[in-house]
């Protein structure tokens, strides 16, 4: 991804470079960087990349949108870009027009459920919803007696208990208590909450992989600057080996995430093969966030442990992103069940089908 001929990614990278410089953001205690960045992203049509023209979006391909999320991960941007993209995508599954402004999706965990009552009202609780507090609208997946529906909800109709994730970004609990949606339609046949979780999980995987790429970059750079025992620390073999392992984790995360993105972008349905790809990406990227992040901090010594340094913008966010749309533990159990259920002799054929 991020080929130079990808206009979506190019546009995004230019905006990030101009308005989302990590050091500037890190120094800005008032968060005054957020508004101009959001403004530029929405004016460029990036926030609704996955929404077709006739539903209010810019109609980029799934593949371009995924590449954009990888770039967003490389800058560790903390505006609801991924969330608004996902919400727009979810709404588009039921041909509901996307409104302007920040959005997020409910539920954001495979364990939470929103239900649709007989009178058309929505109820339920969703925990760990990223950027709910910043959202003007929620895209909601709800279960009713006739199956799955997708709804657009005015965010002010929900009760929000604010929370912060490990990366200091908003991760809130949203309660809907008999809320009437702005719009609601049945989901396409076969679409369910697992599809939403897999899609969200792949979005997070690409962001984690992007953050790891940046962690590798800044760690290599730092090791070539910092001098100890009269030489650059990059000349110590132990440090080199740590960085080689970080490179491996970063490469594995990116490979798993881009492969899963490619699988979703070219698949007709969320079948077992896509499930393998998406679940594996979330599991592998989460493991890489843990191992790779630890190495990046090790190489940076104490300086990387300070708030002034930008490393935490990547390392803590990558760790936090593990929790959204199903943690690696959740997906490992589900993937393990799927594999066991298909039986021993079907394992290799499943892996080799990709």
């Amino acid at each position, binding site marked *: 991804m991020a080929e130079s001929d990808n206009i979506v990614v190019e546009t995004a990278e230019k905006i990030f470079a101009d308005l989302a410089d990590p050091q500037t953001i890190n120094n800005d205690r008032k968060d005054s960087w957020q508004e101009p960045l959001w403004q530029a992203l929405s004016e460029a049509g990036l926030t609704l990349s996955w929404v077709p023209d006739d539903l209010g979006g810019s109609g980029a391909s799934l593949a371009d949108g995924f590449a954009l999320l990888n770039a967003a991960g490389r800058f560790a941007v903390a505006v609801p870009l991924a969330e608004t993209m996902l919400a727009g995508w979810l709404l588009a599954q039921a041909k509901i027009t996307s409104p302007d402004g920040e959005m997020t999706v409910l539920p954001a965990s495979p364990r939470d459920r929103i239900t649709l009552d007989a009178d058309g009202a929505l109820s339920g609780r969703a925990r760990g919803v990223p950027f709910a507090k910043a959202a003007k609208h929620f895209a909601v997946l709800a279960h009713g007696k006739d199956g799955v529906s997708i709804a657009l909800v005015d965010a002010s109709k929900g009760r929000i208990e604010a929370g912060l994730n490990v990366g200091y970004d908003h991760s809130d609990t949203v309660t809907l208590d008999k809320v009437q949606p702005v719009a609601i339609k049945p989901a396409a046949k076969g679409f369910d909450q697992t599809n939403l979780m897999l899609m969200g999980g792949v979005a997070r995987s690409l962001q984690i992989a992007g953050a790891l790429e940046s962690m590798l970059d800044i760690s290599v750079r730092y090791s070539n600057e910092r001098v100890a025992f009269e030489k650059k620390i990059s000349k110590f073999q132990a440090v080199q080996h740590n960085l080689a392992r970080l490179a491996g984790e970063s490469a594995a995360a*990116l490979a798993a995430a881009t*492969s899963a993105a490619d699988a979703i972008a070219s698949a007709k349905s969320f079948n077992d093969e896509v499930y393998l790809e998406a*679940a594996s990406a979330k599991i592998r990227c989460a493991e890489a966030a843990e191992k790779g992040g630890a190495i990046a901090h090790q190489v940076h010594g104490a300086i990387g442990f300070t708030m002034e340094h930008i490393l935490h913008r990547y390392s803590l966010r990558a760790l936090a992103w593990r929790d959204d749309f199903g943690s690696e533990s959740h997906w490992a159990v589900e993937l*393990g*069940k799927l594999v066991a259920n298909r039986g021993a002799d079907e394992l*290799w054929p499943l892996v080799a089908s990709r």
Partner: protein
Amino acid sequence: MTAALRFDPIRLPEKCERLRKEVRAFLAEEIAAGTFDPHKPNREDTDAPEFSRRVGAKGWLGMTWPKKYGGQERSFLERYVVTEEMRVANAPTRRFFVADRQSGPVLLKYAPENIKMDILPRICRGEICFAIGMSEPNSGSDLFAAKTRATKTDGGYLINGTKIWTSSAHIADYMIAIFRTSPPTKENRRHGLTQFLVKMKQPGIQVNPIGQITGQYEFNEVVFTDFFVPDDHVLGEVDGAWKQATSELAYERSGPERFLETYYVLTELVRAVGPNPDTRSAEGIGRLVAQLHTMRRMSVSVAGMLEAGKEPVVEASIVKDIGTVWEQQLPHRVRDLAAFVEETATNRETLERQLDFAIKTAPKLTIQGGTTEVLRGIIARGLGLR
């Protein structure tokens, strides 16, 4: 800089899937005929000359090589499929694998035409076995410390010295080896090594088997005493083998054999656990499968790079580093997860036998073909640290 570490999501084309079916059908027939037992990786005799000939007859050796040398001019991705299906089935590939993967490509690049015409078609027919002679008693990771001498004489060279850890030397017809043709220079300690084609089973070579901790005999000590190698068996540039040896490595380091060597225990674990696993088993299996899938996607991606004519040395090193560390951990993780498998699981004995062998195999995985530490050095160089 990180741009060098992208593994594009290459998909195997349709023709690979057709080929995969053919390979599976072939292997199923061989298993039915009793050629090998896929559930028994620790066979007494992994050398199967007749099986090699049948694989050759299928056109699955030297697949990517020119037709005039007996090859099929097929893609690296097709070769990839054959390799992984053989590996997953535990097929006895010892006799032909090194020639197919490594020695053949070296000959293609550096051997004179008459030798290519003579040897390559025989590799393709599965008739001959190759060994690699790089390591010496005091030269393993530090290849450039090799001392075994090749001294110029009439019409060729006389070889004196000892190679060690030489896999399959006891059954090999040929060895591709590096010998010292002159001393290293001050400016370049890599200078002075030359690559040779050695015909085995001649006077002047003694092959002494070395037992391995698995109980098998796979590698050997090979002692040369005034052993004669003719001039046209020099491969490439005299004194310049160091340049040649490094470009070979992408082939050796990124293939499915670098993460599938202990794979059989995972299949057997899934069988033992059954269709309704408890949470602990399910999670353990899920994590192992996620890792396996990622490894394989990276490895396929490198095969795609080779197909595109690139030399992905750093990427291949990453695949071998993560892949071998994983296949080394795998039997231990499976043992962990199997602790609570029902005593009545029908394949329990098979699983235990496999674990016994895989645990004994594991220590070598991060050594053969370049140690983890050496690979990390190569990756570090790719990152611009050295």
